Structures are given as structure tokens and as C-alpha cells.
């Protein structure tokens, strides 16, 4: 029961995060649904950089109420949309 609810939450969070990425980072014309859950966000993936990560962290804190830690931890969390969603879900359920 609990497991199922978490899965649904992560999937919903993924969609919400994709919309947030497109709007906050001004990716005009990009359909949020075309961003893959596991694709790398930085470098060769979506082409984001450290300034985008900071902006995204700020808006995740504002919109989803979860504070992203700094430094190495952030790097792991920002690996992909799914990684962020899992972190958000984990903090919320804690």
C-alpha cells in the first residue's frame, strides 16, 4: 500500500518537475513530456548548467517545499528528473 502510493507520488512529481524545469529555466517551445525521467539534466543531456541547478533548487524549495542540500549531495540529486522526484518524495515521507 505504502509502496504503491510512493510510486504514484514519484510519477506525479516527475511530471510536476518537468513543467517546473521548462517554465523556470525558460525552455521555450519544449514540451515537458518529452523530457525523459532518467535522462541526465546537465551537460550533454538537457544541456543545463550550475546556474540552472541553483534556479531549480530555489523553485523546488518554493513550490514543493523541499530544500535541496548544497554541494556534492545536490549533484547526486540533480542527476535526473527521477532522482529529484525520489529525493522530494523521500524528504516529504520522512
Amino acid at each position, binding site marked *: 500500500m505504502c509502496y504503491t502510493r510512493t510510486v504514484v507520488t514519484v510519477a506525479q512529481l516527475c511530471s510536476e518537475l518537468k513543467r517546473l524545469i521548462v517554465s523556470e529555466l525558460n525552455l521555450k517551445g519544449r514540451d515537458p513530456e518529452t523530457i525523459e525521467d532518467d535522462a541526465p539534466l546537465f551537460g550533454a543531456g538537457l544541456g543545463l548548467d550550475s546556474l540552472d541547478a*541553483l534556479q531549480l533548487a530555489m523553485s523546488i524549495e518554493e513550490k514543493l517545499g523541499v530544500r535541496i542540500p548544497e554541494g556534492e549531495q545536490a549533484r547526486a540529486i540533480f542527476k535526473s528528473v527521477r532522482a529529484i522526484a525520489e529525493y522530494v518524495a523521500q524528504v516529504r515521507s520522512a
Partner: protein
Amino acid sequence: MRTRLWVTGLGLVTPLGIGVEATWERLVRGDRAVRPITLFDTTGQRARVAGEVDGVHVPSPAWSRTSAMAAQAAEEAMRAAGVDVRAERVGLVVGGTTAGMFETEHLLARLHAEPGHREVLAAMLSHPLTSTGDCLEERLGPFARVRTLSSACSSGSNALVVAASWLLAGEVDVAVAGGSDGLCMLTLTGFNALGALDPEPCRPFDARRRGTSLGEGAGFLVLERAERARARGARPVAELAGWAVGAEAHHITNPAPDGAVVASLVERAIARAGLRPGDIDYVNAHGTGTPLNDPVEAAALARALGGEAARVPVSSTKGQIGHTLAAAGAIEAAITALVVARRTLVPTAGLEEPDPAAPLVHVPRVGREVPRVRAALSNAFGFGGMDAVLVFADPERGREREGGKAGREEGRVGGEGAPHNRTFPPSRLPVIPVITGAAVFGPCGLLDAEACATLPEQRLAHDAVVDPDAHLDAMRARRLDRAARLGSVAVQKALAEAGAPAEGTGVVLGSAFGNVDGSAAFMHRIFDKGTRAASPAEFPNLVPSSPVGHVSIYLGLRGPAFATADLAASGESALVQAAQLVAAGEATRLVAGAVEPRSDIVERVLAALFANSPAQAGASRVDVAAAAVVEAESEARARGARVLARVAQTIEWRRDGSAALRALQAPHGPAEVVLARANGGAGALLDATAWRAAPRLLCEPALGESDGLGAVAVVVAVGRLATGQAREALVLGLAKGRGYAIVLAAP
């Protein structure tokens, strides 16, 4: 024989003390002035320390802290040099970024509580970037000319470069140049949002560094040609021997990881000084203490200095003073000049565990005397990748070297193959600046110069949609705010018209008030939601030079890049500055103009100021960007470009325009005057010149009102010449207490 430039006076206001001696004594001792901020509430911020200046004397509410510190520093420098503004042509160049933001934040807080408060609104634009130069003009002038510029954290360095170009061109006898910046909540919150600040006082080059520390202060230097200084019995502190400025065109906040642009600027600056890496005995690094800057700067120094990097001591003063933003380049230039003069190295305070990723010869803890400092570098890098490197040298170095072999031999060690040009700059042939392309973007759409020839006859709908996005790549332009988008479109079009390559091209764009709306929105968000809601992506767009930085990045322009400000004549100041730099041989090609998006706040302030006079309130203001490609005639001819117009003369003045315009050359053939708007003052000035009979064309009735219309007038004038409507054209740009005349001639 190259013209030598001497530094004959210094003035410093820093967190270590007010005055050169107060600062120097504590600097050499290794004292650190970075401490908990008292100027405003820092609750909830990641870093809550900075270098604050105690004892700033703000003479009246019309002055900002920034202006007050600038006046104290400039006055000290001018007194030390014995400058007489009545006896000599003295130019003033002021670098700034925050200007009166500290004071404006108090107004924004009141407006946040009471959005329509008329008196508060009316005071909102009291401290624009130009206000510091205006305060100095009032207190220490009259100056022969005044320039206000911004290139973020290299503003102070660029101010010195502009001053040097004026002196080498013989346009002024003495130049007072520097920068000033006061601490404010906006910059602290913005740098915290970027994660760029160390919660503890910063530790440049230390393995444990976590960011920089902010500071505030002012630094001014008096520069003059050595010959003239010697004749009046002035003594040099040091020689400003070389410099190089350019843009990385990489990223709005991050340094290019390869440091290639910095390395090339260091090489060029040393070569320009007629020196080799073996002659450099000290480097005052930008050394912010951010994880990104320090290793990149160390790598760039290693690349440029070669084997000499293992010998040359490097230090950063930011652990003691903090990063004083627009003032940093000037404060650190003054400190570098003192290091040369006093043969005493200043330390990197806070550095205890040197980071192996930034391998340098450090000067830890305290300063130390050394046998000699023949020449030293001062680095400054700004947001948008606007970099500057200055070289200060011992004015006696040549004689010393002739006396002993040591210097010469040392020069050879790492100097093999290094650029070495003792005759630089080459014989000073007059360089004629020409315009090879120009464009206007606004309610008229996107027009090239020729299409602009008929602009004054048109009556366009002032509410026409101005859509820059149709001309830009959405993904690459995603960080650009409206000003940067408008600017990129106009500059891109002007360059295309000129058929000019990005290579070697720089950008100078004027703006009257900068991003007032963005700054207000940034602060309102903080008032509403707290400092953690500050937008890291929005913060860099609040810097006055942000449109210039974005344009240079978007279009890959790596030449000199900075913004100018001079109220409603900001576009004229940019164009005149560009022509001066090209004429002086300091730039090959510059795209210059104005970027003025509509501003809700400017309109509300004007409405509040002119509540009883709707005409002056200027309800219908429009988005405008206009730019012209200014380059050396020889360069234009060499690349087979079509020359649309020659810049035959530029005149600029403060106060009395009629006296300045006595130098205005008379037209020889069919001539026209192009004005931004109907202005009784312009009519009276023109009536006293040989241009009195020339037809006068106006831009405002066609396009609508904007502070950028002066740059539009220049493009219209270029268009009139290019289409054969006139042989000569005069653009007369006026704003409160200042003016510019630009004479263009058909090629």
C-alpha cells in the same frame, strides 16, 4: 618613443580604512575587515559577513553612500597629484554597478508597503549609475568630460583603460578614474542565491574556500602623460604601462573553465607594456575565493607567464577587503601601484592550506618587503566574462636594467618566444572611425540604416508589438531578459549589415537607468517571501552591464565590452566612447548604441514627478534598441566593407553646451541635423552654430518616447548619408546638464 602614462595620485576608501595610508598599513599587516554586516538585516542569509566601510560621510540625502565614498577617494587622489581642474583639461571616468541601490532599497521597502506612494515614487530614480559622476562633477569639477561605465566587477579597470585612451589620444591633460560601490541587500542576497559567498570571511586560493566575501569602497587614480607630469614637477607613484580588456563570451556568471581569454589578456597586457613575463615581479589576482575562479585564474597565469609562474608571487586582497565589485578593479589597481612604488608585497589573508589545484607562489598572512618590483599585474573579471588586466611598472625600471645585467638575464629565462614589442603602440597615425552597419529595433520593426533614412517621416503606432524572439534562437537566448533580447537583435542586425565578423568585435551599450523594474521585482520577492526566494538566474540580469554581457555571449563577441550611462544621452555616450576607443587604436571594431526596454517604474516615476504636466510625464514610451558598427577605416577597407559614414567629429560637455559647440566644425555641403526629440535647448544651441540653417529631423514623433532615441538618431543620420539625402549630418544629444555632438560625413 612611446607615450608613458604615470599614476600621480591615489585615493582609497576601503573597509580597512579611509585613505591610502590607513588602508595600506592594515593591508600589509594582514588585518581582515570582513565582519558581520551592520548596514541591513541579514537574517536567514547563508553568508552574513562583508567588508563595510566605517565613517562614510554622506553630505546630503541627494548623495548615495557609493557617491560619498567615490568623492572621498577621488578628492584624496586629486589632492595627492595636485590636480587643478581650472588650469588643465581633466577627464573623469567612473565605474559603478550598484550606485544608489542601498538608498533605493529603503524606498522599495516603503513602496512595498504602500505601492502608490507618490513622494516615494518620485524619489525612486534619484541615484542612477550616473549620479556618482554627477556628484563628483559638482564637488570636484568642472571636468572636461565625464564618463560613467559598468562592466560589473571589472568596471574600475575599464575606467582606467578609458582614461588611458583619452590621455594617449591627447584629448585630456589629466584623467581621474576609478570605481565605487556600496554594499546593499540586493547584492548580498543575489550572491548568496548564487552560492558564491563563503559564510566565513573568504580564503582565496585555500583548499577549504567556499566562496568570496562582499565588500564596499572606492578607489581612484590620477593618470597623466609622463612628459606633462614631469614638466609640472609631479612625481610618479608608478607607470600604467600596459593593459588589455576583452570578453569571454562564455557564461553570464561562470568563468570559462579553460581560462584562455584571461591568459591571452595577460599576454597582451604584458606585451603592450613592452615587457616580458620575466619582468613581472608580482600579480594582484582577481582571487575571489570562489571554487570556480581561483584554479582557472591560476591556470591562466601559468599559461601566460610560462616558467615565470613558478617565480612570481601572487596574492588576493579579497580576504581583507572583500570583493568591492565595481570598485575592485580600481582599488586593486591602486594597491598594485603601491606594491610597485613601495617594493612591498601585500598578502592573501585567510590562506592557510593552499589548494594544489591553484598552484601559485603565495604571499601568506602578512606583507613583506622585496628588493624590487619592476612590474606587476592587476586582474579583474566581471559577470558576463568581461575581463581586464592592467600592468603597473616602476618608472625607473629601464634605468636600473641598463645598470645591471641581472634584470636582462632574468627576462630571458621565461621570455623566450614571448611577445615582446618595445615600440608598441606603433607610430600614432590618425585612425578615422567609420560606421559600416547600423540597425534600429522598436515599434518600427527591425530596420537597417538605409531603411531608417525615412524613419522621421513616419508616424508609427507606439503600441506596436516589439517581438525580439522572432529573431533569436529560443534555447540559446533563454537567459536573456528583455533588454538583452532587444540589444541582441539590434546588434546582430548591425553586424550583419556591416558584414563584420564576430572576431575582434566588442560591445558598448548605453542605458539611462538600467534594469530598474528587475531590481524592484527582485526586492519585492524578497520582501514577500524571504531571502531564500531570491532568484539566482535573475540576479545577474540586474547588473547594469548585463545586456552587454548577454549580447557578447549570444553573438560570440570577445572584444572590449561595457555599458555606459548618461541619462537620456546614454546612447550618445556609448557611440562617442566607441568612436574614441577606435580612434585611439584601443579597439578594432565596436558595436555601440542604446538598449531601452519600456519600464513600468520609469513611467510611474515620471507620472509622479510630472503629475500636473501629462506631456512631460511621457505616457507613451516604447521599447528601443539601436546600434551601429564603429570600426577603423583601414580595417573596414581591408575587409572590403562598405563604409556608410565617417565619424568626423565628436564633442561632449557638461554644463555649458554653447562654449563646447564653438569647436563644432561647419558643414561643407548639404547637411542635416537629427535630433531625438523636439527640444528648445537644442534649437538655441544650434542657432549659434554654422548648422543653424540645416533641416532638423526628429525621431520621437515617429517612434514614440524612449531614452534610447539618441542612438536611433545616429542610425537615422547614417541612413541619410548612406542614401545620399545629405553629405553631412549632426546628431545633437542633450540630457540634464550634459550633451554630445556627433558629426557624421558621407564617405
